[in-house]
């Protein structure tokens, strides 16, 4: 036992001074109040019987003084904060990484792995020594601190309680880096991972992360690896028949035994298809649903299995959203272009208005204007423009040169304008190359210069093609209608590159119409998040699977919807690990003080003071000590 508070010499000084004060007060108390009585002989008669106990009375007075001195001694000792010697060692600094990934939603440990992990974290917090400090970190797709580095158990316990599970994978590397940085410069650092250890192969971590002296600890959670999951789910409309769509999904059996599952596909809340599947051990089974109809917006896939064969419910459901179908108004300005008109006829959802160059633009809002061999100033009621062979004097992109006999030598394979297209074998007889302005993006170029450029002018997005399609074999290829429709869809944000669902834990960039600076994103739980919009896209890191809605504008109108899924087979592998090697070191069990309260001796001293005070109070009022 040692003193963590005031040193012994100081305590003795305090006790000496205070006890002197107590004795003085005691002596003053003994100077009784003088009270006159009319006839003391009557009191003599009364006191005669009390004389026998006078010696005992004196003893009781001494006892009263001793009690007061004992109280004082206990208080002074409490100031010294006595502790067991093991508690006087150098303080530990712990980073509690509470795994909050999707796999922690597994229910093999009731009620869930996360609940068990939080219970273990609470045990560690309660077992901290008085000088120990800790920080609670939620380990999800990004490490999120839930408390400060503190020795305050209340704050730490609140931090543990605030940890919530997400539908993302755990980024152990980032969490370890965070823990290492938190412990930098602090003695006796320990990084404690509380989780199922299902983080894939951690052997490579030692090459990327150094713990810099911090000791890795591991508290394993979980006991079963049985899981069935939908790890892929995607949907798209047919480009040429947007009333129909196809679905691709993949079901995985992550157990060692065969499994019978029922796969249910719902569209807009109505069951579209139910399939019974037999999955072999560790089998991944892709499924395609072609030529589906009946749903106009939402699609949900749900996996049902026998009890005990699937411990992780979160990956049994997958969500997807069909691209919105709406009629787009197209203004076609041309002297006549059969190929162009034919391409536009392929999409029944296009309302095409054709005018000849020089005529006034009809009233009403047009989503896209297609300007064939003309490039007049764009009217305000036209949202975006596709320029085909714009004249040199009025081209939105300056003309660099006139070229002949060329083709697409390079093109942007990821741009939605050229999606599903092979441009390499297109031959062009004559045309022009562009000199893109700053901010313009070259989508395709010949060896002599850019020939397909996108950008924006005065708030109008555009795509400019540097040659007349009729001067090439492009119009004879399937690429031609795709180029036209892809461009229109790109402008309408419902191109074939439409993302039917995002993956949780990643940064999403969701297209937002208009020029809003922020939008409100409503997650599947109904919680709204203010999300900044950058370059027309809302940037958000989502951690929950389900359907999201975007609201914005002055009237907080619904701007769009999208879906998010876990879609991570590694996270669906929930087999718990009993051993964990972190940064080249084998993580050991964390040491928990069995009774931290017992080490707080001062509490017991104060309780003793309280007890003695009550004892003194009772005995005083019963005249036992006076």
């Amino acid at each position, binding site marked *: 036992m040692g003193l963590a508070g005031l040193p012994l010499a100081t305590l003795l000084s305090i006790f000496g001074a205070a006890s002197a004060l107590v004795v003085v007060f005691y002596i003053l*108390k*003994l100077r*009784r*109040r*003088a*009270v*006159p*009585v*009319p*006839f*003391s*002989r*009557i*009191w*003599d*008669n*009364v*006191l005669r*019987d*009390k004389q026998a106990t006078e010696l005992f*009375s004196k003893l009781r007075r001494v006892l009263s003084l001793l009690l007061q001195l004992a109280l004082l001694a206990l208080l002074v000792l409490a100031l010294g904060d006595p502790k067991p010697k093991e508690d006087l060692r150098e303080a530990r600094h712990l980073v509690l990484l509470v795994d909050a990934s999707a796999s922690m939603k597994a229910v093999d440990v009731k009620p869930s792995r996360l609940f068990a992990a939080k219970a273990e974290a609470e045990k560690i917090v309660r077992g901290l020594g008085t000088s120990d400090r800790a920080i609670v970190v939620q380990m999800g797709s990004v490490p999120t601190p839930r408390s400060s580095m503190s020795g305050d158990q209340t704050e730490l316990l609140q931090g543990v309680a605030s940890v919530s599970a997400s539908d993302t994978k755990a980024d152990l590397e980032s969490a370890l880096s965070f823990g290492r940085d938190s412990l930098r410069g602090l003695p006796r650092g320990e990084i404690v991972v509380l989780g199922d250890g299902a983080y894939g192969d951690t052997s490579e971590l030692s090459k990327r992360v150094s713990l810099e002296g911090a000791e890795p600890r591991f508290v394993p959670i979980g006991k079963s690896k049985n899981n069935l999951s939908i790890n892929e789910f995607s949907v798209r409309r047919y480009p040429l028949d947007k009333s129909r769509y196809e679905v691709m999904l993949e079901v995985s059996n992550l157990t060692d035994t065969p499994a019978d599952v029922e796969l249910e596909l719902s569209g807009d809340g109505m069951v579209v298809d139910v399939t019974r599947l037999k999955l072999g051990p560790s089998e991944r089974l892709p499924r395609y649903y072609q030529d589906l109809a009946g749903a106009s917006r939402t699609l949900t896939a749900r996996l049902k299995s026998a009890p005990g064969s699937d411990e992780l419910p979160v990956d049994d459901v997958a969500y997807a959203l069909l691209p919105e179908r709406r009629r787009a108004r197209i203004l076609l300005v041309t002297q006549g272009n059969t190929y162009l008109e034919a391409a536009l006829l392929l999409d029944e959802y296009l309302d095409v208005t054709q005018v000849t160059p020089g005529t006034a633009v009809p009233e009403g809002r047009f989503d896209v204007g297609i300007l064939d061999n003309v490039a007049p100033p764009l009217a305000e009621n036209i949202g975006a423009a596709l320029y085909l062979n714009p004249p040199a004097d009025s081209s939105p992109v300056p003309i660099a040169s006139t070229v002949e006999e060329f083709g697409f030598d390079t093109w942007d394979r990821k741009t939605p304008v050229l999606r599903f297209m092979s441009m390499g074998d297109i031959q062009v007889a004559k045309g022009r190359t562009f000199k893109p302005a700053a901010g313009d993006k070259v989508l395709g170029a010949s060896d002599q210069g850019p020939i397909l450029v996108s950008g924006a002018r005065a708030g109008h997005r555009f795509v400019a093609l540097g040659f007349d399609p009729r001067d090439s074999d492009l119009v004879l290829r399937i690429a031609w209608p795709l180029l036209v429709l892809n461009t229109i869809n790109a402008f309408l944000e419902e191109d074939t590159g439409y993302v039917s669902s995002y993956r949780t834990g990643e940064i999403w960039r969701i297209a937002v119409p208009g020029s809003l600076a922020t939008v409100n994103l409503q997650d599947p739980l109904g919680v709204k998040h203010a999300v900044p919009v950058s370059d027309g896209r809302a940037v958000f890191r989502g951690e929950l699977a389900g359907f999201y809605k975007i609201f914005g504008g002055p009237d907080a109108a619904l701007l769009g919807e999208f879906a998010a899924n876990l879609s991570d087979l590694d996270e669906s592998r929930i087999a718990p690990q009993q051993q964990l090697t972190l940064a080249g070191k084998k993580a050991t069990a964390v040491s928990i003080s069995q009774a931290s309260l017992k080490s707080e001796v001062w509490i017991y001293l104060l309780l003793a003071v309280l007890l003695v005070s009550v004892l003194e109070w009772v005995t005083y009022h019963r*005249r036992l000590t*006076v």
Partner: protein
Amino acid sequence: MGLLELFRPKTAQRRVEARRAQLFDDDFQKKLESLAIVSRRVFAGRMRAERRSKKKGSGVEFADHRDYAPGDDFRSVDWNVYQRFGRLLVRLYEEEEDLSIYFIVDTSTSMGFGDGRKFDQARRLAAALAYVGLANLDRVTIVGATDAVVSRMPTTRGKGRIFKVFDFLSELEAGGTTDLGDAMKTFVAQHKRRGLAVLISDLYDPAGFERGINTLRFNKFEPFVLHVVDQNEAKPELKGDVRLYDCETGEEREVTVTDSLLEDMARAFSDYQKNIERFCTSRQVPYFAADIGIPFDELVLRVFRRGGFLR
């Protein structure tokens, strides 16, 4: 109103009226006029009054006959006896004389203890009883006593002298130690004419209350004991550790006052009072406890009459 009172200065008259008002009012005074102090014994008087005496004289109460002697008043010859027996006998009547009543007021410090209510009660009792005595043409003497006779109002009679009584009583002050034995020795030495001796005291005598009473008894006085009692002294409002000191002797006692101790004190106080009463009763000394809690008029008009002290 007497003639002298017409010439009494008005300021002095007001002062006397105020003092009398402190003691009792006019209505009460009229009630007192119908009372008389009862004496069980017959004492020799000095002047004709309304008390029976051992002397035979010109009273109205027949006492005896004796043979006629020359010089006797013919009006006193009992002619009926002469007619029947042929002897000249003279009627003898009881002579009515006055009675000496002494009021011995304890003026020790203990009588003025606290708010002095005991002392006030004692003076009011003395005044009321003195008025009764004066109204009956008794010879009234008042003395203040502690361990000696500290003051004395000369013997007086006639209710017109009541103001003198008031003045004397008003000027009495409580102070000094109690020693009734010594005080009564002085008293009997100063007063040769025997009579009633009304002792008005709280009887807080460290040497024992018996000595004073016995001194009166042994010297042929008829003692009456009016024990002035304050029940608050039986239950003092004390708590905790205190140092008690006697207001007369200064003797000190260190006491831790508890509820049980207060109960013992009340019991001891009651025992002390009973002890006095027992002593007086056993010696045929009239004893009255004049509790200051009892209204003064009730004490005088009912309690004293019911006890035979007044009639």
